[in-house]
């Protein structure tokens, strides 16, 4: 038995039970293939970092299960053919990953308020084209040995990935007081239109890297 996890991003424009209907179908494939579902985590609608098939948002779900590898092909096939699936990614969770996840969950219980998951964002939706070319993700090249095989089947739209500069990418790890201030990013953040409506401003204490972005935002 191996432990897997699949992240599914569904098109957001459907009724609540529409999501359910699709996900139940995928879960049935897993169960029919002899898998037992360990966890089904519905994140809800979340904004995408770049438009996919002209959508700016997607309904995120993470399903974890245990099974033999046999059913992966079928699951992948179904996900790939389903028009409503914007993205999917199956990952094999090895023992290190499982241990880490368990630990993270334990911590999460201690501090319940976590992440802005259901935020809605009024980003500009001008993606000219989202094509359906099949493309391999470059993941395998950088695969570290700690994480053995992984199944990453997907359709990669290589339309120019528009992006909203939401949470400021601060360079410095917060625990790091010793890092050179060169780590500061002084590239100019252009295109801030959509970031204004963004609810994801995190004011991290001890951040120097994000000052630039914030100032620019106020000017607007």
């Amino acid at each position: 038995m191996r432990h897997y996890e699949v992240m599914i991003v569904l098109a957001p424009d459907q009724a609540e039970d529409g999501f359910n209907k699709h996900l139940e179908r995928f879960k049935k494939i897993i169960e029919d293939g002899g898998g037992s579902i360990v966890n089904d985590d519905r994140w809800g609608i979340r904004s995408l970092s770049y438009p996919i098939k002209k959508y700016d948002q997607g309904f995120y779900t993470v399903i974890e299960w245990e099974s033999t590898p046999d059913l992966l092909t079928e699951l992948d096939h179904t996900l790939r053919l389903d028009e409503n699936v914007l993205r999917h990614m199956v990952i094999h969770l090895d023992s290190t990953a499982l241990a880490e996840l368990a630990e993270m969950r334990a911590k999460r219980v201690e501090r319940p308020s976590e992440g802005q998951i259901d935020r809605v964002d009024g980003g500009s939706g001008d993606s000219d084209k989202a094509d359906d070319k099949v493309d391999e993700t470059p993941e395998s090249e950088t695969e570290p040995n700690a994480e053995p095989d992984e199944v990453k089947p997907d359709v990669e739209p290589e339309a120019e990935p528009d992006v909203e500069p939401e949470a400021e990418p601060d360079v410095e790890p917060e625990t790091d007081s010793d890092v050179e201030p060169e780590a500061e990013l002084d590239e100019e953040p252009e295109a801030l239109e959509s970031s204004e409506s963004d609810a994801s401003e995190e004011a991290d204490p001890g951040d120097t890297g994000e000052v630039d972005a914030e100032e620019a935002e106020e000017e607007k």
Partner: protein
Amino acid sequence: MRHQKPCRFCVEKKSWIDYKDDRTLRRFLTDRGKIVSRRQTGVCAKHQRLLTTAIKRARHVALLPFTTESMR
């Protein structure tokens, strides 16, 4: 010479970096969406490798951007 601070993932004793944790991963992206070199972040080689995979996975499912270039 300055004393090298240990990598933050080493401090947290991480053996795996979750691609779903986009808030943490974002710290290691420039405002253009590029992955920041470990020279600047102080991450050790082992964790930079794990981090890179996590970021690339997150990009694939649109949790993180590939680039911000085409924004306008």
